[in-house]
């Protein structure tokens, strides 16, 4: 603490240059299109942009819902009734870290492109497979969010109270446990949103009309528009992380780390 504060500022400023330059460069590049802001006008008029953004958003919401449906009952039952299998469940939730997205989608395609599980033969089936793949990517931190959230509330007492008033297990989960986990799950949910919105590899191999593949293709075809879309994509990530920051303020256990892309 005895160092002059100048050193601290200097280090931060130095890194700020590295981190802000690419953003500034992208902004200036996107503004090179004439007339001014034409790149942004073109992008907003492009049905591919709106379509892929909407598609990825819907997939992200479905992924979040599916993850919550899978993870919350599991974390609840393991904590309440089966603490002995807890290490095993935690091990499984860590496995997606070991399987890179490109390997995961490789296995998924090979498994689900032939009978009896031929999901990729229909468009809806492939969408479902995409949601499942993203739910796998989200598993480690969604499970952690739910588990950390349950540590903070006394689920045993809540369950007994609900049971003594005659609630069944599904009702307890839906009306008692889930509302109490809201803030814990929000950080996981918005991290999932940020990841799904920008994901490229899995969406591309499943040939889905998602935002990542759209931007990648645009980057090869057009000059200024991809710069505009890249900035918009950065803003989306910023928004999602901002919500996590607001919700998780003061909580040491918020989750904001994802895997490789």
């Amino acid at each position, binding site marked *: 603490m005895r*160092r002059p504060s100048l050193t601290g500022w200097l280090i931060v400023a130095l890194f700020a240059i590295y981190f802000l330059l690419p953003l500034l*460069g992208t902004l200036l590049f996107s503004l090179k299109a004439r007339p001014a802001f034409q790149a942004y006008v073109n992008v907003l008029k492009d049905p591919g942009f709106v379509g892929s953004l909407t598609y990825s958003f819907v997939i992200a919401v479905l992924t979040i819902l599916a993850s919550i449906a899978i993870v919350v009952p599991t974390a*609840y039952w393991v904590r309440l009734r089966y603490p002995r299998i807890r290490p095993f469940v935690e091990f499984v939730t860590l496995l997606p870290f070991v399987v890179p*997205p490109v390997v995961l989608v490789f296995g998924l*395609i090979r498994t689900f492109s032939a009978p009896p599980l031929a999901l990729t033969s229909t468009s809806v089936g492939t969408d479902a497979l995409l949601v499942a793949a993203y739910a796998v990517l989200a598993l480690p931190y969604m499970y952690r969010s739910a588990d950390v959230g349950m540590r903070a509330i006394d689920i045993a007492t809540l369950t007994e109270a609900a049971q003594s008033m005659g609630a069944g297990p599904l009702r307890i989960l839906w009306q008692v446990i889930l509302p109490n986990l809201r803030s814990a799950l929000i950080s996981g949910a918005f991290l999932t949103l940020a990841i799904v919105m920008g994901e*490229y590899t899995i969406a591309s191999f499943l040939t889905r009309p998602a935002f990542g593949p759209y931007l990648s293709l645009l980057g090869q075809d057009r000059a200024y528009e991809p710069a505009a879309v890249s900035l918009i994509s950065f803003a989306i990530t910023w928004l999602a992380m901002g919500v996590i920051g607001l919700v998780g303020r003061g909580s040491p256990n918020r989750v904001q780390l994802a895997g490789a892309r």
Partner: protein
Amino acid sequence: MTVPAQALVQGGSNVRPAPRRFLGLLGLAPFALFALLFLFLPVSFLVVGSFQSGAGALTLQNYSDLSQQFIIDAYSNSIEISLVTAIAGGICGFLLAYAVVFGRVPRWLKAVVMTFSGVASNFAGVPLALAFIYTIGHAGVMTMWLEQVFGFDIYAGGFNLYNKIGLEIVYLYFQLPLMVLIVAPALEGLKPDWREAAENLGASSAQYWRTVALPVLTPTLLGTMILLFANSFGAQATAYQLTACQVNLTTCVISAEMRGNVLHNEGLGYALAMGMVAIMAVALVLYVLLQRRAERWSK
């Protein structure tokens, strides 16, 4: 045989009526089914395939085929880039975290750095590659500016965004913030008492760091750098967008195999994938072990 009272009390929960017990297990069914279908089944498909020849016979040929030069190159490129960005990202990230925690900077600046780190560590893939291309690519804004204002062509000067070094510079954009995100809380976890105790014993600041703080932090620092390694090793989209896989990476070879335009050898693709999983598994095990050591001091 006497039964301890405790066992009897615990035993009480075991004589739950059968239907409730069944319902309890039913609660785990969605998770089990999900993990089985979308995690275990695809991975076992790759495992089994990696030991099969094209005709379906049991073979180790796929694994011995991994010794082809371009595959060895791909693995060593991937490992090299992951190592370089893990170490450089680790050191720089530590420096930045140190600056915001101990550098006597205002609270708001620390908050800005931490929030930005959360964003940047997740801003990977296609848009990140494009941002660098528009800034210091062949026609990038900064490339042009340097040439127009200073008459200096960085590409003639030997810089290249589209090779290994360029890729490493781009990867640092998400690696470094990841380090900051994990290490800053660890730095804050250093107890002031330790420092005071060291000072009371006459230790200088450097001695305190060398003999107290760094040994306590080492498992966290190493563990996080392993996480960075894994983070980079599994990455694909950034490299694909930036170099169109001119820099030959493991993820690129697997992608090419999946698109069916290079190897024409299913089994080899599966073996490649297994190689990646094996390296990631080693990284994860090391990470978990170091994590356990790191937690020893946080209690």
